[in-house]
């Protein structure tokens, strides 16, 4: 345990349950993430990790339970409002905008975050970046290692690069909580190491909490301060990476009863 005070939690999930027909994807899950804390979320396929993400982001409406973020009960708030409160995310199956360039992805994210109520500005605003915006975009591209690709349409990029575009798109909104869903799939070993250092750096510099779903346990070990293990919809272990990996139930979940 990290010893953070519960009352100061950034994200507090209580009793979250979500069923799809007869299948209960997430069953009575409790999860607390402190400000700036990096938490790994691991578990076999079908454990309910992505469904949990979808409930936190509002893509899916939970059947029961509460999600409190920065002291606000998210209730049935739509996804975009949660994003503006500071929840950023990347997707297991990439969700990029194929016709836009890399820089446009970041521009859209930067401007969307600033919100509505400026109809005429949205309507008539030039798509050209202001000096301030392009400095931010440029810095972000350098940070995630996409410099030089600013004006390339995303449709022309490979899967791994698209994941980095998603990451940059989420990060430029300066989220206080980043939900990263298998960000390393499609990246090679070197790129994965870079990814780990980016996540640690941004988290440290901006006190951004990270909830990391990942099958690459090496990446989890490098990034996460605490690891939560899920299996068949429920949390089965919670603690430091080493402690969790030594847990008997975790070994069962991953390797079967014989282990």
């Amino acid at each position: 345990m990290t010893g953070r005070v519960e009352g100061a939690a950034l994200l507090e999930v209580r009793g979250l349950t979500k069923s799809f027909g007869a299948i209960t994807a997430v069953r009575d899950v409790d999860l607390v993430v402190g400000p700036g804390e990096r938490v790994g979320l691991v578990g076999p396929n079908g454990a309910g990790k992505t469904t949990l993400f979808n409930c936190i982001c509002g893509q899916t409406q939970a059947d029961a339970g509460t999600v409190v973020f920065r002291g606000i009960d998210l209730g049935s708030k739509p996804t975009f409002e949660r994003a503006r409160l500071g929840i950023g995310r990347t997707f297991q199956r990439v969700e990029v905008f194929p016709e836009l360039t890399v820089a446009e992805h970041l521009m859209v994210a930067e401007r969307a975050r600033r919100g509505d109520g400026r109809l005429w500005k949205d309507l008539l605003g030039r798509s050209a970046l202001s000096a301030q915006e392009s400095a931010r975009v440029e810095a972000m591209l350098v940070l995630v290692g996409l410099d030089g690709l600013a004006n390339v349409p995303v449709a022309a990029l490979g899967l791994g690069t698209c994941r980095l575009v998603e990451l940059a798109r989420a990060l430029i909104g300066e989220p206080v909580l980043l939900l990263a869903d298998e960000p390393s799939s499609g990246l090679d070993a070197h790129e994965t190491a870079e990814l780990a250092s980016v996540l640690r750096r941004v988290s440290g510099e901006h006190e951004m909490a990270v909830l990391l779903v990942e099958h690459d346990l090496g990446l989890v070990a490098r990034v996460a301060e605490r690891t939560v293990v899920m299996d068949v919809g429920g949390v089965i272990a919670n603690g430091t990476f080493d402690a969790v990996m030594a847990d008997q139930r975790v070994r069962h979940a991953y390797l079967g009863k014989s282990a």
Partner: protein
Amino acid sequence: MGQFLSYAIPGIPYGCTFAIVAVGLVLTYQATGVFNFAFGAQAYVSAYVYALLTEHGMNRFGAFAVSVLLLAPLLGLLFDRLLFSRIARANVTAKIVSALGLFVGLPSLLAVVFGSATRYAPPSVLFNPATVYFHVGSTPINGIELATVIVTVVVVVALMVLLRYTAYGLKMRAAVESGRLLELDGVNASAVVSSAWMISSLLAGLAGVLLAPQYPTVSSNTYAVLLVAAIAAAALGALRSIPLALVGGIALGVVEGLASGYFAPGSILHTGLLPAIPFLALVFLLLFLPGMRSLDEPNDPLSSVDPPIPPSITTTRSRDIDRVVRVGRWALAIFFVFSVLTWVPGNWVFTLSTGIALSTIFLSITLITGMGGQLSLCQATFAGIGAFAAGQLALHAGLPILLGAVTGALLAAVIGAVAALPALRLRGLPLALLTLSFALLADYVAFPPSWAGGPVTGLNVPRPQIGPINFATSSTRAFFLLALVMLVLASTVVLLIQRGTLGRFLGAMRGSPVGAASIGINLSWTKVLLFALSAGLAGLGGAVYGSLQQVVTPVDFNYEFSLIFVVVVVTTGVNTVEGAIQAGIGFVVIQQLLSYLPGRAGSGSLTVLLFALGALTYARHPEGVVEYQKRIWTERFEGLFDRRNPQGQGELALPGGSPGGAS
């Protein structure tokens, strides 16, 4: 109770007519993954040929064999081999647009080939329509009703046995899930899909010929309305269940039977609500049946690797050519305007002005479909709202027509925003069906009253008076200039949106709604705004069109025009302002030129046929055929220079060049 039954029972055979079409739709959708909008048109083709053959003295069984057993499956085979099998992996919009191309193209093709003479009701194949065979309670059952019920029962039972209990049915269901996987099991998936097309097309032909004697004339409109009723019936089973489609069809027939019995003849309920029941049922099912709402393209895991829409040629051509094209385009525009204002003959000035007004309406499609990625099939309805509002305000309030046009555009925008509310959670096929229902509701309920669409003789939309210039008495050239000003205003709005932040938001929404929401884009608001802006543009264009024509009727803005408009714009290019203007001008110019041809058909049918053929290429050239040709020619032209310059861009064309190479 006796009265109730006497209203309900005739509804059952009537409902079977919906059911048989509904079952055919479900079969096509289930077996091929294509929602076949052309189904009604296919039924019409068979009915038309059957009527034609019997009219020329052919025995009715012979005519049935030719039109249903031979022609209908052949048509299905052609559709599959020449069109749908080639676009199996295209997105849902491309498939819908291709089917819409057939929907508007097939009746036009018949008119072009056989002339536009009316075909009267042909004889019935099975029983005598006039004979009452027996009574159910006190309800007489005539020959057509008997035949409909028998055929429906036979078809439904046969199909259910085929799909549920035969190996062929299993293959058919597997072919939809993944043809590629099925082939790995050693099954010829494309043959399975082809045969499914032939069977469902046979059903279309059967339904067409079976129902033809019921209506006084064989008209494509009958079958189009029948199609929508059948969609509502099929919607009950979310387009997936044949028994539920049957239940839906009969239920719809019974409800209509009851309504026509209990609604007082001549009342607004009888004239307005009764024919609208199928459309209301479809709207209701789309909004409240979860299975309908979530209808979407089959999730092909490889869809994200499909080549994207190529960038507009304006962004890729070399700078020298770009400069030439820019200058050339301005020169052409100035020459065009100068010519119209000076030497072009009067009837052509009128034609071109119509083209300018249409271009303004077409820009609304550029905005909502090209930029927003939302397929709306009720844009002509919004244009009608603009025209009727302007006319009514001038008639009743004496409002100057220009002010009326702006008010009409605003009204259309408000109605567009309201229409967007139920559409918020829909995209793709459900949205197309919902907007088509809106268009039909407007045709049947909203536009017919004289306070809306005007009296039956037409609503007068005056020409404007600006200062000393009275556009009614001055030449049409002056009005052309006015329409042009409106088009320039509308184009400016669209260009600003395209180049601005909203345009990028729309690009994000088009690319991935989930991703767009995750970065804080309010999709609901963006969609309402998109619908409102688009409807406003259509309303403005409609008012200009009305003022040019001076008299408009609801027929000028009915659902058929909504479909034709989409087909026309998609053909020339739905992603650019240029595309909309080329569509507007091209549509009227081609029609005018074709009218000089000697021939039996109206030039209108031939024009629609030409554009419908163009729409069939949409799946392969989503940027539009005109835009595609421009790129090809520019590349060829640049290729001439590249031969001298070895650092050419030829390599760039390779990755998207052979999509078939992946397998």
